[in-house]
């Protein structure tokens, strides 16, 4: 278990502002200390992770929450780039999407996604999903030493 009191840092890659707000507000209610960064498309996400302008001061996230339907560079392309990047590939990537396409799930795991979850339509379920994700990835999951 992580050191008590330590902040869990999420990076949310999500183009839908409303969805991002839903995640953010549910995380706020969580007893687990966390902070959430959010970017709106794939290109921004990679810039953020690589600390390219305008994200020179960006912090490396503990967990990435990745939507698939993204403008410019879609989620699977982003996932591929992350996992191909030596400095980034150990960051757990959780695909969070409304897509039920078999292909997407298949492909995501092929590209070494660490998890794949569907956005529930029901509010209570959505809330529980956010809470469980932060609990699992923020508390129970033990990342490799270099991260």
């Amino acid at each position, binding site marked *: 278990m992580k050191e008590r009191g330590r902040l869990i840092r999420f990076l949310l890659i999500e183009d*839908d502002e*409303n969805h991002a707000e839903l995640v953010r507000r549910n995380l706020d209610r969580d007893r687990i200390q966390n902070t959430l960064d959010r970017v*709106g498309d794939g290109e921004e996400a990679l810039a953020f992770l690589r600390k390219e302008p305008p994200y020179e001061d960006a912090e490396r996230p503990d967990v990435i929450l990745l939507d698939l339907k993204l*403008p*410019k560079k879609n989620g699977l392309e982003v996932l591929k780039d992350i996992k191909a990047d030596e400095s980034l590939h150990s960051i757990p990537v959780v695909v969070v999407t409304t897509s*039920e396409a078999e292909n997407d799930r298949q492909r995501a795991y092929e590209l070494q996604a660490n998890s794949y979850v569907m956005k529930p339509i029901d*509010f209570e379920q959505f809330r529980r999903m956010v809470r469980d994700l932060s609990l699992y990835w923020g508390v129970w999951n033990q990342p490799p030493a270099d991260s």
Partner: protein
Amino acid sequence: MTTLSPDTIDLTDCDREPIHIPGAVQSHGVLLGVRPDSMEICLASENVESWWGRSAQSLVGQPLRTIMPDSDYERFEQTVDIHQSRFANPLVISTTTDKGVLNGISHWNSGLVVLELEPVDIAGVEQAQPTDEQARRVNSEAVDRLFHLTMRPTMLAAQAHTVEDYADIVCRELHTFLGFDRTMVYRFAPNGDGEVIAERVHPDMEPYLGLRYPASDIPKQARELYRIQWLRQVVDVDAPSARIHPAKNPQTGQPLDLSQSVLRAASPIHLQYLRNMGVASTITISLIHQDRLWGLLVCHNKTPKYVPYPMRSACELLAATVSPQFVSKEISSQSQRRMKRREMLNPAVRGFTASSRVTESCRQQFPILKDIFEADGVAIVEGNEVYCEGITPEPGLIPSIIADLSPDAESGIASSENWARRMDQPESSVAGVLLIELREDLVFLAFRKPLTQVVRWGGDPAKAVQKIEGSARLAPRASFEEFLETVRGTSKPWTMTDLELAEDFQQAVMQFVIKRLETQAAEARVREKLKSDLRLSEVKLALAFDAANIGFWEYDISYNQMTSTHWLSTLGYDEEDDVKFERFTELCHPEDLPRVQEALEAYLAGDAPTYQQQFRMKRREGRWVWVESRGRIVERTESGEPSRIAGVHLDIDALKTSQERVITKNDELQSFIYAVSHDLKSPLVTCRGFLGLLREDLDSGDREAAEDDLRRMEDSIHTMSAVIDDLLDLGRLGRDGVNMERTNLRAVIEQVAESLEEDAGHREATILIGDVCDSAVIDMHASRRIIQNLLENAIKHACKEPGCEIKVSAAIENDILLLSVSDTGPGIRVDFHQKIFGLFERLDSSTPGTGIGLASVAKAAELQGGTAWVESEPGQGATFYVRIPQH
């Protein structure tokens, strides 16, 4: 009577020697001729003198009773009185001589009673006078032994399966009975040659078993005598014979016929013959059945030996008993053998195969045919072809043999036992020839070796050749020489059975040939029918191939040659000659070729059960078409390697294209559904999420937050309905079919532009109508959708800054309508130029939109046979084009 002159002697003289009238008797007995009316002696053998002390001349004319006791004479006279039938031989007669009691044996001869007197006992030649009593006892003992002698062979006959077995039994009994040094059973072949088939012999003497003797060894008249008189005895070859006085029968004026005489002197030739064999004494008993001389029982003794009359009678009885047995055994074994051979004949001819020539079939059956004809070699001759097996003459000689034998035209069969001698080929390995004409120009021959058994005579053969100086007497050795000569070139004879089998064989082959001809004729009819059927189906097949555009191909692997060009013609080529396999590799799509070649090789190597591949081939006009190729090995080399494969090319292009289209459509539909569900679910998530938050915010009394929640819910509901509207628009495209007709394009553009002027105004943008052709061939609804969506797209995405200009143009050039909408906005990066036409693809989530508009443009362009694309560079604005062909 024939006179023989020393100069003219040859072997056939034997046949002329008058052995039945030698004019002399053997000297161990005396012969008297008695007139039946006067009972006077009218003939007497010269040796009477040594018996009675009176010369033959002096006895002639004397009454018979003067030389025997009255009682004996009276008994004799009584037998004579009885009508001229056989006498009750022997009559024991006491003579007035020192010979004591004698056996008298009488017979009628040319009006005379011939009385022969001979000793009673075995040792009679030298014996002191036996008494009357003794003589009777000897005779009666002989009768007892007679019983054994004759009964045993009869009782044992059943045990003997062959003639030879039976001969051996008879031989054994006779040998024991008479006690000679040698006892033989001798059988005559139909040609007169003799063979020793059973023998009992003293160990000091050379065995004769198995030897053959030429017919000339026993001359014709001797055989005749053998038939009349069943038993002959020569007591001592060296004893002088006693002449009969007078030389001629006074009753007839002819020399006395001694055919029935028991004392008859043997022929000097015969005596010499016996001497040459080292024989001093002999008894010969005829085996006669139905008046035919079947064989002889022959006994030889090294020293003189006398067999008295009763024992001789016993031997005669033996001969009479066993003769029919011999004949029946011979007949049954011959018929068994004949049956066996005949039984072999049918399977042999059944073994002939319809597919090969009779000559070939005969050759295959050579071993059996050899057995059937008991031949040492066989041959078949068809025209100039000669095939031989076993011992045969040189193949080159065979045609001349056929010519020489000149078979009977009717039967087509000929035979010879001494071909070699006839053809002057003394060294030939073949002597007997049986010729069977199977049909014209087809002759079967069976060959037999010369008989190689050589008769071994007693003494030195070189010295044994004798021709008595100045005498008309033959030396038997001459016969031997001649026989060797004869034997050298003569085979075992061809019997009736052989000839019958030849005829059977000939008929069987003829029947086979006829049957086969009939079959062949029937087959030919069937073949002809099949041929015409085949021609018809070939035509049908060709028509079907053409109709279905099926290409037929054949690949000759060893010559690397494709021997059918029909597959080429289906691809539009008109190459006619055989083409190399490389022609195929040229035309096969390079992406498919390795896979096809691999599959073909795997099939040829036996690793794959079939060859069936789908690949693209280049048509003559350059288009690639999908074909399915299926092939099968149709020919293999002797070692089993595939040498030829044939197959078909099926044009599956249409199938393949529609298959691909279905797959694409299916994929499109699938992603459409996912995309739709995503874009409809997304606002729903937002709605439900903020509804939940709204409750919390209301509970906590945070009004500001509650307002925000409501606004977000309204936004997402608005988005949802926009998506639904756009999807419905997209769905409507082409739903009622595409109706390409000349339309007033300008009017359409103006209407749309006008309807969007307000929206543009909100963004402080201007819609300009540039050069626009008046009319074009378009589907009005689809084109309206294109113009509307392109203008809306420009307003939403390009007009972020005030003063943006949007311009619509339309021109027809080279029969193609080019419609364009350009803007002065920020432009679009090259890597997004294609992506933006995808369904629900959006470049910027901060601007409103459903991601359906440009997808609809692409679809509407496609419906009208055209395409849509964008040309743009960041910062330079963007121009969207739609190209619609006018024909």
